[in-house]
């Protein structure tokens, strides 16, 4: 039995402890904002927060999130939009949008650890998140904007 908290709700899971968190979120809890992209932690579409840190849920087995607090895009902001989401909207970041939940969760975690990230910080933190539509330029601008810097 794996006990955890997902978006503030206590949950217990008694299935295969090797099942990645991604599929528990998507198929069991039906929290589909977190996306499946590669299953190998190569693309970042599945990024969620474990105790405030960005992790790849596609490659994190349930056994490794026991006792953790998991936060997904659905619970990023209780009231209205998170500043990062506002910046994403202001800069018209998404094209197809499929990777953007992961991008946003990754950016939120970055700004939490580095409120004023440099260009280098942004590239390093975001390099694990692929966007096949190619919205990187706008992602960079939105992160700078959310950090209070003029993009």
């Amino acid at each position: 039995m794996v006990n955890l908290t997902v978006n503030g709700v206590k949950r217990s899971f008694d299935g295969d402890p090797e099942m990645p968190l991604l599929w528990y979120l998507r198929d069991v809890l039906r929290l589909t904002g977190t996306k499946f992209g590669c299953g190998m932690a190569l693309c970042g579409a599945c990024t969620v927060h474990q105790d405030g840190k960005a992790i790849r849920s596609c490659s994190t087995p349930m056994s490794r999130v026991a006792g953790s607090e998991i936060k997904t895009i659905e619970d990023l902001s209780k009231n209205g939009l998170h500043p990062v989401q506002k910046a994403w909207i202001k800069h018209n970041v998404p094209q197809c949008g499929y990777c953007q939940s992961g991008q946003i969760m990754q950016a939120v975690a970055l700004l939490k650890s580095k409120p004023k990230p440099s260009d280098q910080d942004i590239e390093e933190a975001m390099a694990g998140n692929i966007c096949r539509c190619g919205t990187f330029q706008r992602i960079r601008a939105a992160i700078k904007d959310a950090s209070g810097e003029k993009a």
Partner: protein
Amino acid sequence: MSEIQNISRRGFLKGIVSGGALVLSVQFAPMVAWAQKEQGAFPTRADQGKLHPSVYVGIDPDGTVFVIAHRSEMGTGSRTSLPLVLAEELDADWSRVKIEQAVGDKRFGSQDTDGSHSIREFYGPMREAGATARLMLIRAAAQQWQVPEAECETEPHVVVHRRTGRKAQYGELTMAASQLPVPRKEELKFKPRSAWRYVGKGSPSYDLTELCTGKATYGMDASLDGMLYASVEHPPVLGGKVKSFDEKGPLQVAGVRKVIPLEPFTPPHAFQPLGGIAVVADNTWAAFQGRSKLNAMWDDGANSSYDSDAYKKQLQETARQAGKVVRNQGDVDAEFGKEGKVVEAEYYVPLLAHASMEPPVALADFRDGQVTVWAPTQDPQGVQEVVGKKLGIAPEKVICHVTLLGGGFGRKSKPDFVAEAAILSKNVGRPVKVVWSREDDIRFDYYHAVAAMYMKAAVDANGKPTAWLQRSVFPPIGSTFDATAQYGGGGEMAMGWTSVPYEIANFRAENGPAINHVRIGWFRSVANIYHAFAVDSFTDELAHSAGKDPVEYLLNLIGPPHTFNQQDSAPGQKPDPEGYAFDTGRLRHVIELAAEKAGWGKRKFPKGGGLGIAAHRSFLTYVATVVEVEVNDQGEVRIPRVDTAVDAGTVVNPELTRAQFEGAAVFGTSLARSGEITAKNGAVEQSNFHDYQVARMNDAPLQVNVHIVESEAPPAGVGEPGVPPFAPAVCSAIFAATGKRIRELPLSRANLT
């Protein structure tokens, strides 16, 4: 091509609406076919609008305007921009427009969202639908007020009669308007350009907030109560068949319900599923796990001889031989026979995979002889046909809901994966969602064709070609529908090959034969990719060989502004659509604009830095791209800046158009840097983003500046045309920076130290 007609839909609408019996529709099929289509049509909210003068729009008495998005949304913005065109001519308040995604249904006209033609093809019909509803509202108000119709005008969502100061909301006029006959096309009055509120100014994506909050629904997110999940083990080689597998292994995995062999396809493979073995389970993970226990053995069949290295040599060898002539003027052979300088070069672009972020996925629910599917498809009518045929039911018995697409790039115009879901749902008697893994996506794509090009030019004392020969060889998309097809089709030849706009007296374009061994399909900008790579790279080579500036050389090669239709120079080849003749003046203009904005000829670069330019017209849009590169001592390439000039005619949504060209630069970066699919013993060797790498933030251009030309020409494509010039511009920039000429992609194969 799309003629609006009055069509009585009384039978169809019975029980749904009381008024608005006359409905406009776009006619793409004979009237007889319409009657049949109406039987199986799926009613929309727009159909239920009190005023419903077109399949694309319905207006409620409270003023809510329902606009149908009948094309698929994969990030290009047509779901927003086409309704915006309708709202413009309706003079609607955009905030009161609700967009409704259409199911697959021929009454909406073509829904096959590819070829960058959503705006081009439906700009007119959307304007007509909006103007029709607006005229009916105006007439209803004029009748009520007993004033001449000509004295009435509109403000957003309101009809106004200025002389008497009267106003009426659209919503309150819907009842009276719905009693009026639908006006003929000739009666419609369109807003003057100067009065446009939306077109040319644009609007962010209709779904923007949902896209940023995880609330948007993609195919991957579709769900039904009681649904099961499936994963399919496909034959590793195209045309392979199952020899044996372990049925018990998967069933020992908790949550696995059933193991189902799938029939192999009957050639040609077209859009049929590949066959293989499906594992159906309670969740995706269990299905994946179960599949890993299948221990399947295969009879690989004839394509197991396919080896990318040997195949490449074969293509290159073919490209050195005379091929089928697809355009010919003057006498290149005579010119080559003369004494003088001749330049030759060979180019190569490998197979490429689409790798949209959302892998193929579909949910199907088969019951009572019909199936309802939810799929991220570019072509819902294609889904109806393919699924209908596979299940032995009429296409009308396939209801195809189109979800948002997590990228498409051409992959999702093929509904093979949707048919898998439908077959499995019918088999298990429950809704089934088929989820392709990334490995499935990379290994079983409809690949962008591998191509070899041979180029030869005789040049005069100024370095200008007096003769030009170009030959391309690639397995054609036609091989997907006809296993014997070996030559490029008219569509492929028209893509940057027969349309080369240079002023050269002796010119010959040829195409050589190639046999396919994997599925070949459309990929963002299609044959333009390898054709532009060869033509634009060779142009740059000739410029340098002549000691000329590449921009000046290119402009000189194009010559003075003139227009021509492809058929003028290549009889029998695919013509440009009416109103879209090739205007070399527009091509010249984007070249000059991109060069100017990039500071061409005005900037000094340190060692390893330089600019390259390429210009290409595709999907009727003129694009020139200047790429700046920095190559360090380790041979690593960075792309600090890109300047792209675009003439796409009338641009509906400039902000989303800019985004398409920014994205195209990244897409171009991916294929230039690392895009390569290879096969050994017939099986694709790559499987995921570690061995099929696509651009990440640190590989992508740092800054892409998109310069859109103001134009009143009819609208052209924007989703694809940014891609073709990118790779040749990068390679020309690398040459400018290092003196090293790249003739084969991807760059990861080149040594730049």
